[in-house]
């Protein structure tokens, strides 16, 4: 294993995000969007071959599909049918880890995919809707990927619409404990965080090369728990970069973070 010196920020994020799936055992890994999908695929190809994955349509695969157009003679490694209704049987069993990119994430780890501003009856900006976030968040572990870490995403106050449950005591359902909520990693263009601070406060896990604690805090509207010793996010290995390149032959990863900066900004 050789640490690479030349890698993009997207590749750094993919490798950091793949850590979310490394110790999950035999669960369905769902990465929505290019970086999360490559992160799940990288984990399946390297750290956790027991992961399960779909083709984003209706089949389960024993090997992740490369992204984008594939050669005419490409044969997907299909292993079973997995239509959308069956996805929910899996979700509600808890044997899944999803990584998604909501528009807002508040200090409780609650997220918003639905509507911004105005009133609920007449929002200023209508987005996707709650989608599967309520069910995902109460059923299985979830991680987030945020390509642009700023105070509009990590915002002041509570999400305009709470799509997914977080560590908010005021919303805790009867008979549940906050430990039932399982938000894992938050990977951004600046750092990796989790909710492992005191009382589930958001906590800095690692800083991407060249990023400071102050920069992360300035771009987060709520206080971040900063441990005494915050490591630098581990650089990809040349082996990992080769796997990523094979999974993303059209280099879609170059378009996921603004201006596709290098991974080391020191």
């Amino acid at each position: 294993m050789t640490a690479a010196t030349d890698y993009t920020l997207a590749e750094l994020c993919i490798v950091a995000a793949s850590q979310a799936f490394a110790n999950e055992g035999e669960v369905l890994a769902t990465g929505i969007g290019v970086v999360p999908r490559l992160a799940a695929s990288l984990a399946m190809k390297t750290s956790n071959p027991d992961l399960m994955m779909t083709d984003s349509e209706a089949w389960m695969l024993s090997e992740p599909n490369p992204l984008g157009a594939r050669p005419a003679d490409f044969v997907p490694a299909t292993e079973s049918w997995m239509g959308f209704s069956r996805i929910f049987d899996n979700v509600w069993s808890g044997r899944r880890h999803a990584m998604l990119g909501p528009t807002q994430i508040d200090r409780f780890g609650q997220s918003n995919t639905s509507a911004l501003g105005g009133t609920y009856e007449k929002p200023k900006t209508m987005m996707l809707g709650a989608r599967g976030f309520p069910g995902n968040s109460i059923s299985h572990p979830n991680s987030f990927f945020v390509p642009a870490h700023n105070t509009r995403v990590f915002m002041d106050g509570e999400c305009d619409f709470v799509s997914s449950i977080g560590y908010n005591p005021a919303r805790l359902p009867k008979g549940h404990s906050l430990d039932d909520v399982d938000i894992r990693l938050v990977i951004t263009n600046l750092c990796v965080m989790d909710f492992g601070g005191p009382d589930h406060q958001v906590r800095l896990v690692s800083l991407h090369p060249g990023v400071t604690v102050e920069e992360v805090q300035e771009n987060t509207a709520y206080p971040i728990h900063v441990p005494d010793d915050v490591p630098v996010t581990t650089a990809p290995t040349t082996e990992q970069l080769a796997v990523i390149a094979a999974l993303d032959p059209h280099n879609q990863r170059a378009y996921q973070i603004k201006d596709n900066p290098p991974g080391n900004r020191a």
Partner: protein
Amino acid sequence: MNKQMTAAQVVAQLEDGMTIGIGGWGPRRKPMALVREVLRSDLKDLTIVAYGGADVGMLCAAGKVKKVVFAFVSLDFIPLEPYFRQARQSGSIEVMEIDEGMMLLGLRAASWGIPYIPTEVGLGTDVINKNPDIKVIDSPYDDKEWVAMPALKLDVSLIHVDRADERGVCQIAGPDFYMDDWFARAAAKTFVSCDELVDTSFFHDPAQARLVHWERSVTTGVVPIPGGAHPSSCTPLYGFDVPHFKAYAASAKEESGFQGYVDKFLGASEEEYQKNVGGLDAIRAIALPTY
């Protein structure tokens, strides 16, 4: 029993204020020809239940909709449905916003004739807080509270399938039948458009019969409309029409708006519509999407 009918005969059975379920998922296998026939009618005040795409957007834009029951409305590669967005942002529709899986449970409850299905899904989120009609209840078996997802009873469901016979045996040959079996069962009447009308003997091959997902007693009427899912996909027959959806989305930013789209494409009949979008051969030639 011969259940074959026309799209106009389907719409003649719909009434103002009805709750209508629409099968498919986002830009995939939507009964768009039946939706277009609704657009040509004077129906109004509909409640639409759907995993929504342009079906929901078009009905909202045409002023047919009082309320939308949804988890998302999206064209996938165009994430935000332009006319649903306009309807929400102008406050012109009521909504019941729920989780994707809650919709499945609501359709199952309606299909099974039970008032609700208990679930954890929705707890701690605004799909409960913004929906006073969805109750949270105690369990007789534990000390937790549970969401009582109410039955989503439908007056009518509209579904598009690959093939059907005149008795209402319906085949979905694509990789996913989404929740269409539950839409079919949850409705008092289910009308199905099909790309191909086949003889009953077609299903004597078990490999074909295996792709039938509900009993024919659930199907009220069958409308043969080749290409009837356009501009959504009907995999494996045709993909979704990316340029058409782009033109549709762009129309929302033009001054003529949805009326401009209608004037350009809708026509007085499905024949006219298909002529306006390049004909059935062009629809059937649309490549399947790669995910």
